């Protein structure tokens, strides 16, 4: 069930430089949301910005959902200016959630930048299912690092200002080679180059891996055909990120 609701901002916090957490009150969305799903948000009544903007559901807390986002362009700038009590128009929950059940013991979470967004929600669920969790987070610099509500976190920064100096996938490779984990499954989210590296690593190492993609969307519900990702095989060349994703088994898709 997809809901379209005008919801109230009930919490707002700047959690790192230019990165905000926003809580929205909506029992309906909160109750039906699953980790890996997203909502498509409209925050202006005018034609600027015209389209909704997609954001992962970062956490569910009672009857509210939390978004975690950074200010990129006009849309997120406007979203960051919202105050408690303001209203935004939410469409969701949307998309296919992470496959969090089944044959794995350790969840290896790999996030680059705001790719952490979906993982607090996933972490909560995994903990309830008593999975082991190892989390790897990459950021440009310590100032833009967010690790809140994640478990057992190891950090990489591009400039070495915190943790490992290098990419998060490099950090991951080093770690897994020195401390192999039991029956792992990887969950990745972040910029495309990182996801490509992660996918290559996962396929080489033979580890199951789900990726959550971010890309340009207009509708978020399968109406516009605006969000293709190349499929690795099958009759159809593209899948739609909004309705067939945003989570994909890394073997199903080709990133460019």
């Amino acid at each position, binding site marked *: *069930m*997809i809901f*379209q609701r005008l919801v109230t901002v009930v919490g707002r916090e700047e959690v790192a430089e230019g990165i905000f957490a926003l809580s929205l009150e909506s029992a309906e969305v909160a109750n039906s949301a699953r980790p890996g799903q997203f909502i498509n948000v*409209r925050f202006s009544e005018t*034609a*600027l*910005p*015209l*389209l*909704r903007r997609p954001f992962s559901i970062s956490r569910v807390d009672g009857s509210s959902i939390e978004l975690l986002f950074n200010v990129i362009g006009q849309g997120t700038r406007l979203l960051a200016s919202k105050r408690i009590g303001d209203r935004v*128009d939410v469409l969701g929950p949307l998309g296919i959630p992470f496959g969090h059940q089944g044959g794995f013991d350790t969840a290896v979470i790999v996030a680059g930048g705001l790719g952490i967004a979906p993982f607090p929600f996933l972490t909560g669920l995994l903990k309830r299912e008593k999975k082991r969790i190892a989390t790897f987070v990459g950021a440009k610099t310590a100032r833009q690092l967010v690790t809140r509500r994640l478990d057992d976190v190891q950090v990489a920064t591009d400039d070495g200002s915190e943790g490992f100096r290098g990419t998060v996938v490099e950090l991951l490779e080093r770690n897994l080679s020195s401390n192999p984990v039991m029956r792992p499954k990887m969950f990745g989210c972040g910029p495309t180059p990182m996801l490509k590296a992660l996918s290559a690593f996962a396929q080489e190492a033979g580890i199951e891996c789900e990726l959550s993609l971010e*890309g*340009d*969307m*207009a*509708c978020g*519900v*399968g*109406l*516009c*055909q*605006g*969000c*293709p*990702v*190349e499929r690795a095989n099958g009759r*159809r*060349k*593209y899948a739609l990120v909004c*309705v067939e994703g945003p989570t994909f088994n890394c073997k199903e898709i080709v990133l460019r």
Partner: protein
Amino acid sequence: MIKESFSIRGVEFKNRVLVASGTFGYGDEVKDLVDVSKLGGICTKSLSWKPRDGNPPRRIVETPSGMLNSIGLANIGVHNFIDEKLPYLRQVDTKVIVNIAASSLQEYCDVLRLLEEQEGIDGYEINVSCPNVKEGGLNFGTDCSMTRRISEQLRALTEKPLIIKLTPNVTHISEFARAVEEAGADAVSVINTVIGMAVDIHKKKPKLSTVTGGLSGPAIKPIALAKVYEVAQAVKIPILGIGGIMTAEDAIEFLLVGATAVQVGTANFINPGTGVDVAEGLRRFAEQHQLADVAQLVGAMESNVEFSILQSWL
């Protein structure tokens, strides 16, 4: 009771608001969110003979009060449509207009002929903004004689409503409308998207994979209104006005300049229920202005200015 319905070639649409091709999928994507029985009709995504993958990403770019798309007519093809989508569409309580796209005259005819054998289709809308493969990819819709030929040949194949959807990317759209009317089409849809582009200045590349794409949304509403107005001076067949409609007020502008009905496009991406809201708003406006029939708005704009002033002294 206010009369909200209108007819094309004997097919009665319950109100004057349809959803535009390519902006409402095949009608089943948002059935949880939208009560489609409150729409005048649904125009399906354009269908071609074979399924089309569409263009590589990036396909969507937002622009000031508008968006560019370069979907490349990704569609499931007419056979899959008949198998997978038509059964659902047969039981919706609104009119179903199947939109057809093709890269040859032959393909248009083949698709329509196959659809003619099916139950549950109320009419056809022909997307002529397609590359004519025989002519090196030249757009059918910018070639008046091709547009006329497509209309004539398809007219010969069906007794159902035949609506030709015109492109705005021509000097005199009224010439095309006249040709289509003479060819026996029942109505014209005005307008398809306007050619546009956007550049990523950091990557020094076009934002869309195909360089240019189609501009839609509120930004083009003034252009669409002028095109509908121009067509309304030229032909007698009904016009379905399209372009940037977000509200009932926008729709009323289109009716006033001469559209018989409207289609809501891009707005569906923001609020899939826009069409229903617009239809409801139209009814309310008619109520407030004590109109017996929404038709009283059609072409009701007063203007004592010569049409010849249209393109002058800008």
